[in-house]
Each structure stands twice: as C-alpha cells, then as structure tokens.
C-alpha cells in the first residue's frame, strides 16, 4: 500500500479535527471554572481549546445533585430495554426468518415500515395509550416502547436467514424443538448480529428525549437526557454542569460502541447476505 501524500494527510487531519474539536471543547468546558467557559470564544485563541485552569467541581456536582438519580434511571431503563428488547426482537426475528406461518411476509413488511416511521409521529397517541394503561411515571412506561425495535428485528432476521436450513433440521433430528433450535443454534451463531441489535436498542433508549419527557416527567423517573435539558433555565444557567452532563451522556455510548464496533461491522457486513 502506498503512503498517502501530504495533501491527503492534511485533508484527513482537517476532517478528523472537525469531528474531534466540538467534543474536545465540551470536555474542557466541563473541566473549566464556570466563568472561563465562554471567555475565549471570540476571538479564537489557544485558550479557546486549552484550559488555563482545571476543576472537577461540575463533575462532582453531577454526582451529588439530583442529576445522579437521572443517570441511575437512564442506566437502568437502558439496560432493561437492551436485555428484554433482545429477547423480544430475537424471537420475533427467528419466527420471521425460520417459522412458516400465515401472513409471515405481511407481518415482516409491517415491521419494516414501523421503523421507517419517526417515533415522534406516534409519540402523542402512544402516550394516550400508555396513560390509559396507568403507565405514566413508571419504568415500564419508559421501557415498553423501546423493546420492540423494527430495525433490530430486521437486522437479526437477515442474519438468521443466512444460517443454513440444514443446521436447524439436524437440530430437530437431534431432538430439539423450536426453542432449542433458537437458543442452542441460532443465538450462539449470531453473536455479531445480537451485539448490533443490542447497540441499536441501547442508542435508541439512551438518547431518547421526547418519550421520557412525555411519559415520565416526575423527578424519580426522569432520565439523563431530560434532566440535562432542565439543568439550565431562563434565570439559572449552570453551563459547567450542562457540559459535564453532556460529556457523560456522550461518553457512555462512545465507550460501548468503541468496545463492540468490530462485532457491529461484522454483522452489518454479513446481515444482507443469504445462504
């Protein structure tokens, strides 16, 4: 492979900086004293991107104030969504890929269309249903819409379709039923696809804002994304805390995605291929 030329390297560095600098600025803003945050924005100087003083006061405040409960809520809701969502989406995908039942393709098409509809478009009627079920300000209300994810089902189904039919037939002859085939054959063979589906469920729930705002506004059930928006008001703006919170909610998915990206790319690369 030839080495890229200087121009190419410059372009690559420029694009990388374009993505990196906002995150860097958020990071140092979270670690700066409050009066330093916007001080060096205009004109731009070295001090815009390099802190003169460092403080962990905002981060400490994040963990001692009411935001802590929001973080706990977000982690709990997201974890439950991922675990329950994987069970729901994987079993649905298995049925759609493997079990022959009437209107299977119609069900699949409806499911695919469901993930093309923006969630915001159905949030209000869904809120009406959930409130009717008495799920306002409950964890169940927060979690329930996140567990059936059309994109995750689609991804898993495509992966399952690539598993040779003979494997499940051999499993049937070996004495397994449908659940045995799913649990002992399809799940162990679908690691990358399951990781990808987990990431989809994770990101969907972690970054959810409108739905938690509607269904769980009570402080005990408030999630981080909602809490961060309420950290500053017209009269009281603590940007240091906002940046610290924003940094935290960005770092968690970044860490998860970085750790699992190789499974994700493996799945995306093979998800469309069939036997």
């Amino acid at each position, binding site marked *: 492979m030839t080495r890229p030329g200087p121009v190419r390297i410059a372009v690559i560095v420029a694009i990388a900086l374009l993505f990196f600098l906002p995150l860097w600025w958020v990071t140092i803003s979270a670690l700066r004293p409050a009066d330093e945050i916007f001080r060096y924005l205009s004109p731009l100087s070295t001090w815009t991107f390099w802190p003169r003083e460092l403080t962990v006061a905002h981060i400490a405040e994040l963990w001692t104030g009411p935001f802590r409960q929001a973080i706990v809520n977000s982690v709990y809701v997201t974890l439950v969504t991922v675990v329950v969502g994987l069970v729901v989406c994987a079993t649905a995908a298995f049925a759609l890929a493997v079990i022959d039942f009437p209107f299977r393709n119609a069900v699949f098409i409806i499911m695919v269309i469901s993930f093309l509809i923006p969630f915001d478009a159905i949030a209000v009627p869904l809120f009406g249903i959930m409130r009717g079920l008495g799920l306002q300000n409950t964890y169940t209300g927060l979690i329930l819409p996140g567990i059936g994810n059309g994109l995750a089902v689609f991804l898993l189904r495509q992966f399952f379709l690539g598993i040779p039919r003979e*494997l499940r037939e051999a499993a049937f*002859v070996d004495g397994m039923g449908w659940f*045995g085939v799913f649990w002992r054959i399809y799940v162990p063979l679908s690691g990358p696809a399951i990781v990808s589906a987990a990431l989809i469920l994770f990101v969907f729930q972690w970054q959810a804002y409108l739905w938690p705002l509607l269904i769980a506004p009570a402080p005990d059930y408030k999630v981080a994304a909602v809490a961060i928006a309420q950290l500053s008001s017209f009269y009281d703006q603590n940007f240091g805390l906002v940046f610290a919170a924003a940094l935290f909610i960005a770092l968690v998915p970044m860490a998860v995605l970085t750790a699992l990206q190789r499974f994700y790319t493996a799945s995306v690369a093979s998800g469309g291929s069939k036997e």
Partner: protein
Amino acid sequence: MSRVTLSGLRKSYGAVKVVHGIDLDVAEGEFVALVGPSGCGKSTLLRMIAGLEPITAGEIRIGDRVVNALDPKKRNVAMVFQNYALYPHMTVRQNISLNLRISRVDRAEIERRVAKAARLLHIEDYLDRRPAQLSGGQRQRVAMGRAIVRDPAVFLFDEPLSNLDAKLRVQMRAEIKALHQNVRTTSVYVTHDQIEAMTLAERIVVLNNGRVEQIGTPVELYETPANRFVAGFIGSPPMNVLPATVALGEDGGLSAHIADLGAIALGKGYDLAPGSAVELGLRPEHMRLTDDDDGLALTVNQVEPTGAQTFVMLDCLGREITAVVNGMIHLAPGARVRVRPDEAHVHLFAPADGARIVNHR
C-alpha cells in the same frame, strides 16, 4: 434398528405433485439406496421419513409405530446431511454428544459412547476441534459419528458424499459400507450416483418423477432392468438403446434387425410377432470390437481411454452409442470398425412405454 414401511406415500406442494404413491418395505438392518435424477423426489422421500417434510397422504411406519404425525425427535432416526450440517460453534465432541445431552443421558455413558463412535470412525484426535478446523472427509466422519452415537432405529443419508472429491468419495464409500456391516442399522441412502448405490446398497429403489421405476438388488437392476429408464440409469456408461425390427430367422428363432446395419439373434422365448418394432438395449461392456465381417459396421466418433478400459463412441444411425473395450486401444475418429454385441446379454423394450419385453425362456 427397525423396519421402515412406506405405504401409498404422496407429497404435493399445492397443485404440484412430487411423490405419487410410493410403497416400500425396508427390512430390519437392510441398506436401501434411493437413486434417480435431480428432482425425482428421492430427497423429499427421505425428508418425509425423517419428519422434516409433512406428508400429503399415505403412511410411514418405523418399527411398529405409525410416525406420520411425530416430530423428528420422536422418530428415533439419525440423519447425515449433504453438507454435513455440523454445528460450527461446537467442538466435535459437543456435536457428537448433543443428542445424548438433550436426552439427559448419564455423563459417563455419553463419554463412553462418544469414545466408541470416535474410535470406530478414527476421529479420536479431533474431538476437541471445531468443524472449521477439519477437512471434508473428517467432517463427514463427524456427521456419521453424530448419527451412530445415538444408536437410532434408522440411519438416513442424504447424498452424504456428494461434496467430497472423487478419491475421498471412494474411501468414504468403503467406510460407510464397513460401518453398516459393523452396526447393521437399517439405512436409507439417497444418491444420484448409481455407482454409489450399486456398491453400497443391498437393494436399490430407482425413482423417476416421483414414482418408483424398479426396486431390486443391484444385480437385478443391472441384469433385468424393468424399463428403458432403469436400463439407462443403472450402469456406467449407460446402456445403448437402438430401434430394431423383429424378424424370423432361418433356424426358426427371432432376430432383431438394426436397419440395414445387421441383425442380432434373439433366440426363442420372446412373445413377439415378426415385423414388430422393438428397442434393443445393449450394454457398452457387452459390445466388442471384432475383425469378423458379420459385425455391425460403424464409424468411430471419439475415443476415451480411462486406463483399464477404453470407451469407444460410435455413430449408429445418427445416434451415438458406446462400446467398452478392456485395456488401451488406439483408434482415430472417423475410423470404420466392426462391433459384435453379445447376444446373451440383449435387452428388449417396448417402443411405446419403454417396458421390458420379457424373455420367457
């Protein structure tokens, strides 16, 4: 091991009928091969016995039980698939022992049975490897190990050797035969390779378009094919079939005239009227090149030396026929030769339906 009985077995996919009422009785411990061209329904038949394909009509019995409505796991059958179907995420040991673990067999007993199967199939050294780390032949052995470890009522083989190269196929064929002689489990073996069927099976079922053309021992199928299809399918190279007319010879016996090329004595015993049209079946190995003037004078199209034998393709009334000659023979395309068919091995078929015309002698 158990007897397998199929009665009036039918299979349709919507309006398309693929298996048309098959009756077959596989005796306890017998090795039966199902052969036929692609799409003849042989794999469908096997899958119906396994319970992987629902049947449209008829009855399947394994032992004394009617198994029509039973799941595969309740039929006590083991199947070896064409592409091995080994579980890629499990080791050889786990692949082989899976059924026993599902059946909650005692751990020590599982170890004993796996070790026995591994010894029988010479795969002791690979037990802790994954299928991806094995060659095609080793995977095939593991697939067989998975089948025999269960001590099932019936073995079902679905073209198990078709993914192997020619040399390995011959070796594995011998191993399957040895295995059957060792365990004597009732076996149904699907193949499109008639040589595989001839060498392995005690009886062969020839299928065509979802119907049984003939059931018999390899020798019966070879020596007395029931019709033109079986005659063409069993034997390699396939039987030559030529149009002929029956005539009464000077000795009172019948003879078959192949246009003006010559005649072949049929002897007595055929219930045929002089002048009637027949199809004459001549196996390539029953035709020999001769220097005599009374043989059929034919032109050489092509010569295929195989070492022990030479296949000589000849033009006969615009059809290509084959003669097999022992050893090497050097003939140029276009050469004129004389061929004399072995009169003791002549087959006659009715032109209308291809059925064998029986010699009553």
